[in-house]
């Protein structure tokens, strides 16, 4: 699954640690999600989307359907 989290985070000038604190996960989680090595659970995905003011599908895209 691909995502736009790194770009959305950069637009706001947040570090990975800043974002991690805002959504209540570890910095490693944010790094792993951004680099596509780990897919977050639905609650975390929704927290990310809510934080960026977007819909989940605007943050995450399924590589199999959109690739």
């Amino acid at each position: 699954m691909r995502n736009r989290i790194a770009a959305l985070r950069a637009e706001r000038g947040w570090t990975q640690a800043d974002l991690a604190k805002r959504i209540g996960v570890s910095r490693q989680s944010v790094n792993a999600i951004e680099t596509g090595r780990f897919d977050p659970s639905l609650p975390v995905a929704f927290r990310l989307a809510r934080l960026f003011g977007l819909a989940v599908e605007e943050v995450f895209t399924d590589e199999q359907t959109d690739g």
Partner: protein
Amino acid sequence: MDTPETTARYRVSNRRAAQLMLWTLAWAASLAAARFGPERWWDAQASPAASWVAIGVNVLVGVAWVVAFARFLRALDDLWRKIMQDALAVTLGAGWVAGFAWAAADAAGLVTGEVNLALFPVLLGAVYVAAVAVGWIRFR
């Protein structure tokens, strides 16, 4: 920067980690009492009930320890839960493979020396710690 929701999540996670540490210490202490008590604190022949009580307490504290570990896992964030679960899978696999290999070797008469079975949990602990470290490095 922290929202009340994330602060509460951190608090729960830290509290569960502290509880797990306390239960781990309690289990180790109760195991030490069950193991060394009959030799040092009471006469096992004269009062076997004391040994039974010590073993019973050890098992009960062990059950509470397992529950505390499950609660700790549930309080972790997604990635750390995955790292822990992967480590548990590796540990279970290693224990299974090593245990049955040892049993087969023993049945075949290949195990000639005395093997202390207490080393088996130590092996599992070492595998678990190593697997967590590998997971941590992998997702660093």
